[in-house]
């Protein structure tokens, strides 16, 4: 029972939802195609049969409407898990997310809480074109009152939902579409994760790569390639974009004194910009080289595979960005 279990990120998401449904009768899933179709990314496949239409609710294509229902249900004491097919469509629900979910607790002087969880798919890399491929989690990280979780590992995919449901305030979980098929080991001794801390995924010495989501495996690959050249890059997985765990980032920076932020969002006004700015505010004198950033090209993510690949952060670009700020040895 204590042997590590290998599973896909998709399966981890599904197990998390099934556990939540089984554990708390107030919990239900609501979204487009989550029931009969089994979820656009097949995360909820089979759950309708298992839990019935009261708990797995198919909705019309009306994000603002069903997200609003989710807010209301949460206010009324339920624990809704709203699925928005991709974060691109979440913009239709932005009014509910920001003007209601994120603000009601504040506006009622804490008399009301909105224990709502919204899961959305994010990111590019599966040739789904510009309306299904963007990374908008950085935008949501702008909004006080929300928590923004960006699981980049199977472990976080498996356990972040429970932490999100336990939180009395709205939590958005951004699941990367490329990661759904990724597999990883699940340590059975880990039963819960927090929604506070970034995590060091690889120790290093010469530079810090700060990243999250699907850029995490790219950074780990880049670090491996760099290691072959004698450059030891440390990889910090943010896990949460709001709250942002700057102490962990700065600790790492104090060790390496060089920083590259890798973010699948566009560079302008992005979470990578936020991190660079905080480093400039809080740790300028730790820097021994300019902060580097690897982000998506500032275009709508293209459909054509070769162009999409060029638009998104790549292992090569990450390697180059680190090499550019680490002096050659010898």
């Amino acid at each position: 029972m204590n042997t590590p279990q290998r599973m896909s990120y998709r399966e981890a998401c599904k197990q998390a939802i099934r556990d939540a449904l089984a554990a708390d009768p107030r919990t239900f899933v609501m979204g487009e195609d989550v029931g009969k179709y089994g979820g656009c990314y097949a995360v909820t496949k089979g759950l309708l049969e298992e839990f019935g239409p009261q708990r797995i609710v198919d909705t019309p294509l009306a994000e603002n409407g069903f997200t609003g229902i989710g807010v209301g249900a949460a206010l009324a004491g339920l624990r809704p898990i709203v699925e928005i097919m991709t974060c691109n469509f979440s913009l239709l629900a932005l009014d509910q997310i920001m003007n209601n979910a994120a603000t009601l607790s504040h506006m009622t002087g804490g008399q009301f809480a909105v224990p709502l969880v919204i899961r959305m798919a994010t990111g590019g890399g599966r040739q789904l074109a510009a309306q299904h491929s963007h990374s908008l989690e950085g935008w949501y990280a702008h909004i006080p009152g929300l928590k923004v979780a960006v699981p980049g590992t199977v472990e976080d995919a498996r356990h972040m939902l429970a932490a999100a449901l336990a939180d009395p305030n709205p939590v958005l979980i951004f699941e990367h579409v490329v990661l759904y098929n990724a597999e990883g080991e699940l340590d059975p001794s880990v039963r819960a994760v927090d929604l506070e801390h970034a995590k060091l995924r690889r120790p290093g010495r010469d530079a810090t790569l700060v990243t999250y989501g699907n850029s995490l495996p790219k950074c780990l690959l880049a670090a491996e390639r760099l290691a072959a050249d004698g450059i030891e890059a440390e990889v910090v997985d943010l896990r949460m974009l709001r709250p942002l765990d700057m102490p962990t980032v700065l600790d790492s920076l104090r060790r390496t004194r060089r920083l590259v932020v890798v973010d699948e969002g566009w560079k302008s006004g992005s979470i990578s910009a936020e991190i660079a700015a905080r480093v400039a505010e809080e740790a300028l004198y730790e820097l021994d080289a300019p902060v580097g950033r690897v982000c998506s090209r500032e275009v709508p993510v293209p459909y054509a595979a070769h162009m999409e690949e060029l638009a998104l952060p790549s292992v090569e670009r990450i390697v180059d960005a680190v090499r550019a700020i680490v002096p050659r040895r010898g």
Partner: protein
Amino acid sequence: MADFTMPSLGADMETGKVVEWLVKPGDRVKPGDVVAVVETHKGAIDVECFLDGVIDELAPLGAELPVGAVLAMVRRAGEAPAEPKASHPAAVAKVVGAAAAPAAAPPVVLPGLTRVKVSPAARQRAAALGIEADVLRGSGADGAVTLADVEQAASRSAALSTPRTARRGFDPALMRQAIAAAMARSKREIPHYYLSATVDFGAAQAWLDDHNATHEPLERLLPATLLLKACAKALTEVPQLNGFWRDDAFQPAAAIHIGWAISLRGGGLVAPAIHDADRKTLPELMAALRDLVQRARAGGLRSSELTDPTLTVTSLGERGAESVFGVIYPPQVAIVGFGRVVVRPWVCGGAVLPRPVVAVTLAADHRASDGHVGGQLLAAIDRALQDPATL
């Protein structure tokens, strides 16, 4: 008027930096006086002047000067002070110093014209250390001065500002480079030949034990003294290996100055001279060894000690290997190696007995001598060690 120039403190030295003057203009100097401290890859060296007269003008401190550059003008007795001329030390130092020693003479940085890139971490560290970061050479991205550059500069300038008593010995990285250059040159240019003999150390050991049993700890001798003396004595019999290969010919040396290889803590080694080793008594040699090792490690070798060795001896001591085949230090023509003294079964008077023995090796320059001569040296060392009372 005579020029006092930057001495060559070994085949591997190209430049040196005067970090301290021990004389000032108007001071009287005579041959052998230590007049300056010059920083080289071998650490800070006390440089002697072999001129007789009055110091007239000095090169500025901190300038990196090539071997042969004028460091000072010395007015001979009766000479009048000279008009400054183009070759006077200040001018020489200025030309070379501007390029090679920016820390000593910071170039003016015009705002808006040249913005020197210094990383924030480097700038803060430099401020804390009191170093001007803008004049350092940057090794970082885009040529920026990094933290490492500042820290390196700090350790360099420590030698400038630290008082004499606590000065830095040497820079291991610089020394590595110097050893690399000298040894590569040696192996490139010198056709080495190698000889080896195992010598019975029993008589010497017995004499040594006897001597040490009857003397105070400070007067006791190490086996190295006997090996050193035996080698020096052997060189009086085989002078063909005592000297230098210069201008395609062997130049015998007038005296026997043994370069004694001393390994330094933190890596690297130096082989300063024990002057007239053949004429020193064993206690004198022991004292000389002790003094030399201490000064080699703490800094404070004299320039003549670095330039004078006529043959190098490397002795591995109690914890060393059993034998060593050295690489000749140019322009010398030979290096003698002593291994660790080990007890081995030895045929002695028709019987096999346990005896202390030592492997004595020679690496010599085949341009200057042939194996026959080398063999004579090893045989002479053997003979000397069999008769320790006469050493």
